[in-house]
C-alpha cells in the first residue's frame, strides 16, 4: 500500500490507532477564518511516520470515494468531500481517524446529493448490525453522528 500522508497523522500518537481514539481536542488559536483542519503551525506533537496496514473497511471506503467521484458517476467532487470533513467540529475532527472522516463524509454526501435518503441509510445500517449480531460478531453500539 502506497504511503499516504493524511493531515490527521500529525495528531496521531503511536499506539492509538486501534480502539478508542485517545487524542485530545486542541483549541485552535489565531485569527478568525482558520477552519478546523487548517492547523499548520500549531503544536500537535510528533508525526507518526510508521507504516500500517489498512483494514478492509478502510479500503472499501477508499474504493467508494473513487467510484462516487469518478467521471462516470460524479456524485460529488473530492472538494465536496473535503468541505464536509472540514466542516466537522473540532471534537469530531480530532477524535476520528483518516478513513473515519471519509466514511462519515461519504454517507452525508450521498444523502446531500439525494442518492439515498437518511432513512434508507439508517435502515440498512440496522439490518447489517442485526445480521452481524446474529452471526455472533461483536457489534459496536456507537453511532456516527450526522
Amino acid at each position, binding site marked *: 500500500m502506497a504511503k499516504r500522508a493524511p493531515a490527521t497523522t500529525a495528531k496521531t500518537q503511536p499506539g492509538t490507532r486501534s480502539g478508542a481514539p485517545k487524542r485530545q481536542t486542541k483549541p485552535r488559536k*489565531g*485569527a*478568525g*477564518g*482558520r*477552519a478546523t483542519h*487548517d492547523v*499548520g*503551525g500549531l503544536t500537535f506533537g510528533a508525526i507518526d511516520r510508521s507504516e500500517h496496514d489498512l483494514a478492509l473497511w478502510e479500503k472499501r471506503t477508499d474504493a467508494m470515494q473513487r467510484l462516487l*467521484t*469518478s*467521471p462516470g*458517476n*460524479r*456524485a*460529488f*467532487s*473530492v*472538494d*465536496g468531500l*473535503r*468541505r464536509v470533513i*472540514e*466542516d466537522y467540529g473540532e471534537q469530531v475532527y480530532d477524535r476520528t481517524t483518516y478513513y473515519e472522516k471519509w466514511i462519515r463524509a461519504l454517507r452525508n454526501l450521498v444523502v446531500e*446529493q439525494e442518492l439515498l435518503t437518511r432513512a434508507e441509510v439508517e435502515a440498512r445500517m440496522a439490518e447489517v448490525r442485526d445480521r452481524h449480531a446474529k452471526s455472533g460478531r461483536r457489534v459496536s453500539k456507537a453511532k456516527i453522528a450526522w
Partner: protein
Amino acid sequence: MVSDVGSVPPHGTSQAPRFAPGDRVQVAARPVLGHCRTPWYVRGKTGLIIAVHGRFRDPERLAYHRPGLPAQVLYKVRFHQRQVWSTYRGSNGDHIEVDIYEHWLEPAR
C-alpha cells in the same frame, strides 16, 4: 448529479494569467466561509510567483456541487519561512512554496 465535476482542467482559455513568474504578490487575509485551499498561515503574507500551473476549476465552488467556473489560474508561490513563522529558527534562506489560486492574490505593494 453535478456536471463537469472532476474533468480535465480547462487549460488554455483565452484569459491571460494575471501574474507571471517573478511577480511579488500578497495573499488576501480574508476569513473563509466554507472550503478553501489557501492555508491560514500564508494569508496576508507576501510571496514570489515561481510558476503558473495552469487553469483549474475552482475548488471553492466544486465543493458545493457547482461547476467550478470561472476556472482559476493556479500559481506556485514562494514565501520566506522567516516571514511566515515569527518564531522560525532555520536559515534565512529557507522557503516554503504553496499552490494558491489567483482570486486569493493581489500585487504586493
